[in-house]
């Protein structure tokens, strides 16, 4: 369930669009930033705001890879292995982090497609904040910095940091 503040925000978001259905993606981001994932119940709630069915919201949201339909901890680590990162060490960063955090419920490591950071490849995002020019070791350090609070993370859906 959206918090009272987010309910207010949800109404504002819906009002930005001529048709409420357009608000499905932003409301799903809002729910995911709040809950850390996109639950079945959140889809139900979004359906009410957007004048549609939960099946429709599920169908729409499942199309987009940023929405996580199971809890994934506080940090989503997205490592690029696409054709630039591929040849400059991206797969090695991925393998290292996957191994390192295999049993860490707070860190969800995923392989992603091109992040548009090829000039400084290999690169990754943690909760959609960029980290570039990585080595396996420096990438691990970044994740550790987030875990220790030395770096302040965005929401799991990339929402702005709340003061």
């Amino acid at each position: 369930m959206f918090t009272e503040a987010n309910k207010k925000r949800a109404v504002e978001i819906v009002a930005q669009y001529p048709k409420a259905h357009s608000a499905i993606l932003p409301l799903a981001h809002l729910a995911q930033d709040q809950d850390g994932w996109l639950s079945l119940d959140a889809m139900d709630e979004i359906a009410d705001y957007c004048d549609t069915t939960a099946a429709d919201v599920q169908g729409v949201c499942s199309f987009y890879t940023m929405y996580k339909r199971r809890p994934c901890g506080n940090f989503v680590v997205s490592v690029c292995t696409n054709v630039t990162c591929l040849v400059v060490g991206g797969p090695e960063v991925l393998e290292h982090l996957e191994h390192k955090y295999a049993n860490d419920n707070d860190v969800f490591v995923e392989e992603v497609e091109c992040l548009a950071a090829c000039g400084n490849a290999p690169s990754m995002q943690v909760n959609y904040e960029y980290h570039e020019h990585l080595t396996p070791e420096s990438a691990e350090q970044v994740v550790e910095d987030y875990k220790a609070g030395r770096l302040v993370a965005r929401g799991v859906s990339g929402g702005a940091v709340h003061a």
Partner: protein
Amino acid sequence: MSEAVETPARKEVRETLIVSRRVREFPDDAHTFERATSDGAYEIWKEVLRRADVQWIHDEVKASGLRGRGGANFPTAIKWESLPDNGLPRHLVINGDEGEPSTFKDRLLIEGDPHALIEGVCIEAYRIGSHRAFIYLRGEFALGADRIEQAVHDARAAGYVGSNILGSGFDVEIVVHRGAGAYICGEESALIESLEGKRGMPRIKPPLPIHVGLYSEPTVVNNVETVCTIPHILKMGGAQYANLGVNRSTGTRLAAISGHVNNPGVYELEFGMTLRDIIFGIAGGIRGDKQLKFFLPGGASFQWLIASDEHLDQVYDIDDISAKLGTTLGSGAIMVYDEDTDPLLVAWRLAKFYAHESCGKCTPCREGSGWLEKVLYRMSHGQGRPNDMDALLDISAGISPDVMKAPFTQTTICPLGPSPVSAIASLQKYFRAEVEAACAAGVPA
């Protein structure tokens, strides 16, 4: 395989900074309202409102020869002319869903110069008579979304955006809309579907979005770089802009160069340099004293080129490269690979990308992309079979019947389907022997 190529010293090899000047000059704070306005942001927008002359905008942009910078190269002013006059509301949608592998030039503008984008949006909205513009950003651009939202906020506070702008009676609202991880939403009709809160599946065309777009109403979809260029064209004059570049490729465009080059990055290039100039001059040549093996001159979706004189001496010209080499400048990305690179591995990774990003709407792409990926995975991971290359060509023909031909034909709804076929055609063209050798070896994984 690849020949050693001399790097020619060419004096004219330099950048021409127009659309990226502000962000390059003030990389730390060009995104702030203070810096941008002290650097001249919104001056042209004020001029537009002062003149109140839609035709002026149109004429200048038409004279500039500006073509869409998203990859389709459609002349911007002609798109405007195609708008139907049917009394329905018109929408302006900015395509900031930059997701083509190795393409990262729009992100520079989105994060670095949001006020240029907003100024361009206002002017274009004014030109087409739209009162609601949507800036669709790929979901991963969290910082970019923050920056544009802040910029819209500041611009609204200053009266440049909103209702009755600067007392002109003109209204425009700007909505920043984040995607959520789907490359296909860069295709304009899929983007519109996504903006309507649907699965980002391309629509059947016709009708084109310009006629039946967002909410079934006329819609102009433009790339970020295209929109950002409009204020500069009005400032310098369309004719002046058209003086830059060559032939019908007027002005400059942002090129994102990556891979095995010494100086990867985004460069603003006047059309007309050779590819050799760009790779070896602008981007500093191949790193680690290696030789160039092959490169992708226009993003991931089109045919590759190799280190031959014919290819390297090709001029950076939208129409010329297409006519002569059967490939395109696409999204403005140039990926460069050195002599140690396994082209099969690159082809597999591209196929994996397209299989992952296929929306699943039409059969050949949904099933074909996955099939190609599976075969290429085997081939690039030591489990190739002798007739795999021919199998790839056969499967490809089901997606793009004239496999080797460019521009490609397609059995699919949108061009995503044939995109991995470009890589396979490139393997066939340049690396057939190498691929066959790899598959014949049959090394178990």
